[in-house]
């Protein structure tokens, strides 16, 4: 395959490698874990992946728009702290929604701060969001000095229990496919995000995010309000961080002032694994979500393949490294072959 075609194929389907990789790791996992596709096991897995998956969506959007957000983890911590402070086991339904709405606003406000600093004060995204992460982490610690809090059990139950689709129970083929009868709620969230994205992808807003990330100068001279778009991507990221915090809080049922800190770098790795380049203007959120699942499944593999205790960290890192290197390796080899052919069999 020549390079131009290869590049085009990748550009059109940036997540191609991620998809391939996802299938491979899932198969490897499945070969040792027969119950992997049981609805309840699937549910357990996917509900653990969901918070990071949501976070990675926001990260992907910022990265596509030409930025990067190192504060997402601290935002999750902050929103998690707020959620367990505002919602107690006694909180009533309406107040819960209000609290969630407020937390979404807090996330967006945090994103707004990042956005203003990056887009309007024109600060370098990496250091800016690194700096703001201290602010958010400090706020989280102020609000929730020590781990604690508890969500109402129907709220956590909502997140944890499979959704039984009664209507499907009698339809001949569907009733045999257990996963269609019993759907993990996290699946529905992912489906909604993907559908929403499929719609948004066709709007100007998202078109402009890609253009701004690809070539900001060109986008600006073409009449795109690049600064507003940039700002928007950070606000979106803040919103997704709040939603990730919601998922995390519902998943854990409680809060901790550092709950999201470790998610920042994971979210970036997931985005890259999903085929989005860090320079912006390309990629997508489906890939980022696949990246999250890949990272999670690697952990399963380590567990089910009985990797010796002292090798677990190494194996984990090596698999991730190999996964990251995959597309580059294929490209490198195809380049070599092309060079080799071109030089009439002489090595380059």
């Amino acid at each position: 395959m020549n390079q131009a075609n290869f590049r085009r194929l990748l550009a059109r389907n940036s997540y191609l490698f991620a998809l391939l990789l996802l299938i491979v790791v899932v198969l490897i996992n499945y070969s040792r874990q027969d119950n992997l596709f049981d609805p309840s096991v699937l549910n357990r897995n996917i509900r653990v992946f969901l918070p990071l998956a949501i976070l990675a969506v926001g990260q992907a959007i910022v990265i596509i728009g030409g930025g990067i957000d190192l504060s997402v983890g601290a935002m999750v911590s902050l929103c998690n702290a707020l959620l367990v402070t505002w919602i107690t086991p006694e909180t009533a339904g309406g107040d819960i929604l209000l609290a969630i709405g407020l937390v979404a606003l807090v996330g967006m406000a945090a994103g707004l701060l990042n956005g203003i600093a990056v887009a309007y004060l024109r600060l370098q995204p990496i250091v800016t969001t690194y700096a703001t992460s201290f602010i958010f982490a400090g706020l989280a610690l102020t609000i929730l000095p020590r781990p604690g809090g508890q969500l109402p059990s129907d709220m956590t139950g909502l997140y944890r229990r499979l959704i039984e689709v009664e209507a499907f129970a009698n339809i001949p083929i569907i009733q045999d496919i257990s996963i269609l009868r019993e759907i993990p709620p996290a699946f529905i969230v992912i489906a909604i995000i993907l559908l929403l994205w499929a719609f948004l992808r066709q709007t100007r807003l998202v078109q402009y995010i890609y253009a701004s990330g690809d070539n900001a100068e060109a986008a600006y001279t073409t009449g795109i309000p690049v600064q507003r778009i940039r700002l928007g991507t950070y606000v979106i990221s803040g919103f997704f961080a709040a939603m990730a915090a919601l998922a995390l809080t519902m998943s854990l049922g409680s809060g901790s002032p550092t709950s999201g800190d470790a998610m920042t770098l994971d979210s970036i790795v997931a985005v890259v694994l999903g085929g989005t380049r860090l320079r912006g203007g390309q990629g997508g959120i489906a890939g980022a979500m696949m990246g999250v699942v890949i990272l999670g499944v690697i952990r399963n593999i380590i567990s089910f393949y009985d990797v010796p205790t002292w090798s677990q960290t190494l194996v984990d890192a090596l698999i991730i490294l190999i996964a990251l290197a995959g597309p580059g390796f294929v490209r490198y080899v195809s380049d070599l072959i092309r060079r080799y052919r071109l030089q009439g069999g002489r090595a380059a």
Partner: protein
Amino acid sequence: MTTAKAKRGSFVPNFTSRLTPPLIALILAIVLFLLGGVISPGFVNANQAINIVRLAAFLGIIAAGQTLVIISGGEGIDLSVASVVTLGAILTFRLTDGQDALILPVLGLVMLVGAGIGLVNGLGIVFLRIPPLVMTLAMAGVVQGVILQVTRGELEGETPDLMRTLIAQPLIGPIPGVIFLWIGLGIAMWLLLERTPYGKMLFAVGINRTTAMLSGVRVPLVVVLTYAMSGMLAAFGGFVLLGFTDIVFLNLGGRYLFPSIAAVVVGGTLLSGGKGSYWGTMSGALVLQLINSLLQAQGLPEATQSIILGVVLLVLISIYGRQRAFRL
């Protein structure tokens, strides 16, 4: 010829008349120090000054390789420094096993190992086109994994006494050796960046790789070499840090990861590459250390310190870290 001569003189005024970011950082460091004296009397004294420079020296030394990598551009960043610092210290600890005579040979070996890790980073980034951020992040995991695999958490060994004497303890007057070491490294880095072909090529590569290639620079070589050097300097940083802590632990370098990047940026080196200096990084390390010490001396709660640090960093980078405007 005469014109060229006439122009030569303009170098010096050019250098000082403009307030370059490293200079701003240095002035800021001094102002912060004096401010410390105003806020908490007793903060300004020779002892404290030496202490702060000494603590900054460790960060500064660890950030040396980071400076090179960031200058090399292409989103260059090295997140593996922390793990390599730890590895460097563990290797020194284990291999010297307290013997002064082994310090130099082991240092050589440690730096070689660091260079090897950096080399792999460089190769992955250049030939497999893995973005530096994730390549070095994954490498950090691999190094950490190797440490665990090999040591199984049992860190045997001992620090040679000579290392503590030469690095952490007062060497000449009240000034500890690490400060001299840092100054020496500063001079070496200046020479490397400004007075060697490699340095000039590094800037060229950082600004524009096509131009560099078409001017005969072997871009992949320069980039790979830079990451190798970063690994080597990080391992050296681990060695020096061991002279300070005396013993090793699995998370020794962890706390230097993001500060090593922050020091570079606060020192005015562009994250986009092609522009920067090590003396900027040195000033940056001083500034960060001072902020840290100042906040500490106030006895503020952790959460407040964190918020203040974030705000101060934001203010700092907005002084000169700004990017070009679209509309001129």
